């Protein structure tokens, strides 16, 4: 589902399913792979926290930067879509806030560039979190039973 700008619609009203607090804690503490998870989450949160004004200023200063960014964003978005589908299949709570849709790689105008980059960056922390949650739900299912809290 996409909004009028083609950006993903963030659905916040669905709180029926919550991520397992134990899993969340594990992620908070550095996940199953502490050496990479903290870096990954820090980078993702850094991107997600970039303001519209900051992104606008960067692109205004150097409009050709978008040509360098677009292939990376395309790669990121292709992966993020698969992860998003997996998160929904896996029943992870925050996936309800992650509804890919629209053409987020439409960089045809400065306005679309900024809006779409913001949308792409917004899901980065969820993508990182998902990787650890999903790993915990699959690879460790025999070691430790994990259940999702459901309404």
């Amino acid at each position: 589902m996409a909004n009028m700008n083609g950006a993903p619609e963030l659905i916040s009203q669905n709180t029926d399913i919550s991520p397992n607090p134990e899993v969340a804690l594990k992620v908070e503490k550095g996940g199953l792979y502490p050496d990479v998870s903290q870096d990954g989450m820090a980078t993702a949160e850094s991107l997600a926290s970039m303001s519209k004004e900051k992104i606008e200023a960067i692109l205004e200063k150097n409009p050709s930067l978008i040509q360098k960014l677009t292939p990376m964003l395309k790669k990121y978005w292709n992966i993020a879509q698969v992860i998003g589908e997996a998160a929904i299949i896996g029943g992870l709570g925050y996936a309800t806030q992650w509804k890919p849709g629209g053409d987020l790689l439409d960089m045809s105008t400065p306005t679309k560039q900024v809006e779409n980059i913001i949308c792409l960056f917004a899901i980065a922390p969820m993508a990182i979190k998902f990787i650890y949650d999903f790993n915990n739900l699959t690879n460790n299912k025999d070691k430790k039973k994990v259940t999702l809290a459901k309404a």
Partner: protein
Amino acid sequence: MLEIAEKIKNKTATEEEILTFTKEFTKLLQDIKDTLGEE
């Protein structure tokens, strides 16, 4: 990386593949951040 993402989705990825995926995905985010930070 997309191939591993599909495996993760299908629950067929090994722990090693997930670790590789995580590292590469983190690097991709870092590359994007660095590119923006260049200016």
